[in-house]
């Protein structure tokens, strides 16, 4: 039977609607292994017999890991070339983004005045002392964020900034992004750093209605929007094709499907991420959060600073 095999860092519940749609459209069966880490090693260990065709990830770091191991091969697809902008792609097309994910600031609607916070830099301003919450500095999302600051301003400036941010923390970094929203709701802090799509997830959460309240308290602040500013930092979810793939044609079909209109629409409405494809109708609530200008820095450059970012977090003692 026609099939394609996927190693995915993206959770099954998010991926399944997409693969189901793909199978329905093409008749190609999609087999998946989901994992949190170690897939690169799994591919390496299997050598020639590696059964996987594609790797899907939810951030740039994991993509880089596989690429650095030399396991990806370039994807030559006019479809993808057309849809995915260059800064969201590896220079040699070894990987590319499927969606972007803005890492924004959640601010309490009342306790933080509109316009009071504008840029990432502002988070280091002593006036926020004891008012900011974040998750661990070592989380991939924050590593990506810090790496982007290093890529943008250099390590020295980044360190000063991170120290400032650390000094403003209301509590030791802990929990996940949603937990930061909750902390704002509970009054432990007024600002938090989190991915924007969580707003959608909380807002539409019928199983745990209390999360809707959390979301309602929050105003999303896009950073560095002023003209000449770097733009809002984004991370990506992405994919790459493995050198040892056995079903290359199907794999490319799947990739093209994933950047296609239908899949991109699903990403936007089911997971509230920003599609890489332009002109996709997104969710109403997300739309109500407003539009933003995204950082145009090459993600490869950001990814290159991840190790430096991790060390910076240690040096600053961000998590301690």
């Amino acid at each position: 039977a026609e099939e394609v095999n996927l190693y995915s860092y993206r959770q099954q519940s998010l991926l399944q609607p997409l693969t189901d749609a793909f199978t329905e459209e093409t008749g190609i069966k999609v087999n998946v292994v989901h994992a949190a880490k170690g897939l690169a090693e799994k591919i390496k260990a299997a050598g020639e017999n590696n059964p996987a065709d594609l790797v899907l990830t939810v951030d740039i770091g994991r993509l880089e890991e596989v690429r650095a191991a030399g396991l990806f091969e370039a994807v030559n697809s006019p479809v993808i070339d057309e849809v995915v902008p260059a800064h969201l792609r590896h220079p040699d097309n070894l990987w590319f983004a499927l969606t972007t994910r803005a890492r924004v600031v959640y601010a309490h609607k009342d306790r933080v005045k509109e316009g009071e916070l504008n840029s990432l830099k502002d988070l280091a301003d002593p006036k926020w002392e004891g008012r900011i919450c974040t998750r661990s500095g070592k989380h991939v999302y924050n590593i990506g964020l810090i790496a982007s600051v290093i890529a943008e301003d250099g390590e020295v400036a980044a360190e000063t900034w991170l120290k400032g941010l650390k000094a403003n923390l209301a509590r030791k970094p802990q929990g996940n992004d949603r937990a930061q929203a909750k902390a704002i709701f509970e009054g432990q802090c007024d600002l938090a750093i989190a991915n924007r799509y969580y707003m959608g997830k909380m807002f539409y959460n019928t199983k745990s209605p209390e999360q809707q309240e959390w979301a309602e308290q929050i105003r999303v602040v896009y950073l560095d929007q002023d003209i000449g500013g770097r733009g809002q930092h984004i991370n990506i979810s992405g994919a790459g094709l493995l050198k040892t793939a056995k079903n290359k044609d199907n794999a490319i079909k799947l990739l093209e499907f994933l950047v296609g209109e239908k899949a991109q629409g699903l990403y936007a409405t089911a997971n509230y991420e920003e599609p890489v494809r332009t002109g996709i109708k997104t969710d109403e609530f997300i739309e109500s959060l407003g539009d933003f200008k995204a950082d145009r820095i090459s993600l490869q450059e950001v990814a290159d600073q991840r190790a430096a970012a991790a060390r910076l977090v240690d040096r600053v003692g961000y998590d301690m």
Partner: protein
Amino acid sequence: MSTTANSTSSFSLARLRFDPWVWLALAIAALAIIPIATILMLSWADNQEIWQHLLDTVFWIYVKNTLLLCLGVAVFTSLMGTGAAWLVTRFNFPLKSVLVWALLLPLAVPSYILAFVITDQLEYAGFVQKTLRTLFGWQTARDYWFPEIRSIQGAIAVLSLVLYPYVYLLARAAFVEQAAQLFEMSRCLGKSQTQSFFKVALPLARPAIVVGVTLALMETINEYGTVEFFAVPTLTAGIFDVWLNMSSLSAAAQIALMLVSFSILLLGLERYSRNAGKFYKLTGQSPAMFAEPLSGFKAWLATALCLLPISLGFILPITVLTNYALRNLDQGLDQYLNSAWNSFSLAIMAALLTTVLGLLLAYGVRLSKSNKMRSIAEAATLGYAIPGAVLAVGILYPLGLFDNTVDRLMKAWFDYPTGLLLTGTGGALVLAYSLRFIALSYRTLDASLTKITPEMDDASRILGSRSGKTLWRIHLPLIRPSVLTAMLLVFVDTMKELPITLILRPFNFDTLSTQVWDLASLEQLEQSALAALTILLAGIIPVIIMSRNIGSSERRPQGQ
């Protein structure tokens, strides 16, 4: 004072030549050492720069946290485990017959789930603080003091709650098997119950208790999810940071080896404790410890003391999860059933295989009477201290090599490619679980075997039974409770196991814990409550089976 100086001093292949059991044990040990050896090879790189960075910044904090965590867990698990075991062995009090096995239940709770539930209840927005606020009219967190939940203390509490059953199980087995006569003797010599406990019962059970604590600590140092949840960076956090964020698998392997050496230290302590108290029951036929009835306040205090860890470690999470599960019943039932089936069958296979391997290993060590052989076997169990994801990598490479070699040979000789024989199927999972959890089965069974006086072997062999038959007819029946214990531990731990399953599973393969993870990692644990609940409930079954068996073996020596 080496007690078996005559027999343990020499280890030579010549002596082993005739004993296939010892060779079998050696082979099992070799198999189990492979992942650690692989990690050792992976660590073969110069990471001076990373180490310099770590030493300059967070390394000592990692170490301090790891040690504090271990210290706390050691203290609490040994207190709770030993205390509860002694209470239920020595006394009768209300509900005891239920508490005896219920005390094991927290074992079935994955620590990250307990962490989630406890935090959920105790943090600022949780039930407890909310109630306090309404009661006392406090407004914000600044109006009152409440212990920080996401702290090392919290991590210690949660880990101790799920890990104390290791100590409880082993301590209880030790107390039950202990010759009641020695305790009686102590009292005849004028020592009170309490004194007799500390001077006779406890020292005699010490090797078993130390084994329990050692297991709990090995599990603590490899723990990642929970400590991350409590925002306590330990060496494990360091491993993943170095591996994933600094992209240095070799440096990660090096830190992992530090954990291994730390557990070598633990095992050294254990060995010391055992050698210092190396003894056997001097006679095989003394009645078991009998229970004395408690009355009045003391009786209810005993009940309450036993109920405390059960309530926090099991009843609380199961209540919370049931609550969630009822709200989320619309999850895909098919997928749930499929995962449940996978989990159960894997756990049963792993429990059987691991117990058999552990038993053969322990018996081989016993037969060899050699301290070197014992060291080899212990080395084989070190993998337990390594975080699962790292161990999985250590298993992946050799398995891949094996698969590819077989494939190549089969292709060359028979033109029949076998592909990924193990890594492509559930075979790798069962094998990996066994290699990881052999520590559990080996240590449990070994602790139990050493309590059988060698004279039993002597008597059996004089009566014409070979080693194998002796194992079957003498040792197995005598250590049956421990065999069941080993199976239970592996079963429950396999049900909970996540990192290895995630990495080694074949395509489209889910277990209950991967299903829990799928949603939990999306920060929606509530929605996978049914799967989580099943993991917990699955723990009850073997616990009950086992309690019956321990119970019956306890009744037997008591006669009447």
